[in-house]
């Protein structure tokens, strides 16, 4: 139907039907397809690798070995304790039931400021610390610039 007809004389009250059957057909095909391929749980991975030859080589490529610093983070049931060469950090005790992530990030940033090339961190946790806490600590380390996280017993 063209516009002239639609607004033409004596045709004001005519009903216009939009043919939506093709749209319905597309919907009926698309929706089952998308439902089948939908991912409702979004997963990601954190890569951990034990020290191997490859990482030793990349370490030698860095020009100033003095820039590297050994950073060890102890995760205890009572809180965090960060240790690094040339730094003295206060232990970060739990605030009630909550670990003090904000202060941990601040301490990590202090190391990062002095040693911009430091990328390795060792996390050593107590046996009863929950896995969730470990993953959260690893997240904070990665975000602050320590992507090579190693776990030690």
């Amino acid at each position, binding site marked *: 139907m063209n516009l002239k007809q639609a607004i033409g004389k004596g045709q004001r009250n005519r009903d216009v039907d939009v043919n939506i059957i093709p749209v319905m057909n597309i919907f009926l095909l698309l929706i089952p397809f998308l439902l089948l391929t939908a991912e409702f749980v979004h*997963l990601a*991975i954190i*890569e*951990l690798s034990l020290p191997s030859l490859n990482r030793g080589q990349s370490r030698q490529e860095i020009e100033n070995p003095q820039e590297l610093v050994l950073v060890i983070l102890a995760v205890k049931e009572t809180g965090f304790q960060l240790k690094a060469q040339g730094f003295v950090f206060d232990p970060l005790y739990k605030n009630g039931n909550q670990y003090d992530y904000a202060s941990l990030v601040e301490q990590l940033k202090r190391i990062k400021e002095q040693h911009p090339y430091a990328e390795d961190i060792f996390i050593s946790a107590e046996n009863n610390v929950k896995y969730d806490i470990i993953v959260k600590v690893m997240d904070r380390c990665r975000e602050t610039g320590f992507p090579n996280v190693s776990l030690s017993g």
Partner: protein
Amino acid sequence: MEAQYNTNLTFQALSIKGRKRTTHFTLKLTSMIDMFTILLVFLLKNFSAEGQIMSVAPDLRLPESTAQKAPERASIIAVTNDFVLLDGERIAKINDVVASDKLLIPELMSELQKKRQLSEKIGQIHSQMAFTGKISIQGDRELPYLVIKKIMFTCGQVGFNEMMLAVSKPD
């Protein structure tokens, strides 16, 4: 002038008296189209072309993390609050794992060795399928670190050095 989103169906029905009568049906589809449109937008939003590589057991609550790396295909060790599973098969009970004073989990080690041998044999046939030492670990967020440590130690002993911890992305 209002556009009607209807389909018209015309029926010829026989009445009781045998007279032919024409009945006019209109099927209101507007609300269904609305619903479909919303559903379509929602499904298109979380569409991913990669498909699902890992599936997670329903009683396993993965820790949330800001990690963005996409999962890779590898054997999966799932650690729930009750069992250790390797590719869906029950290997050991968590209580036994916690109670043991050794870091090594012997049941898991023997199964992993079988996996490694199989993978190496396949690798001899086709280099693309060679043993890479990759393994994904799905651990429940409530697990103590001790269990995770024992699992990782056992993997490391067998030669699965590239461990990938599965985590869930927050929405």
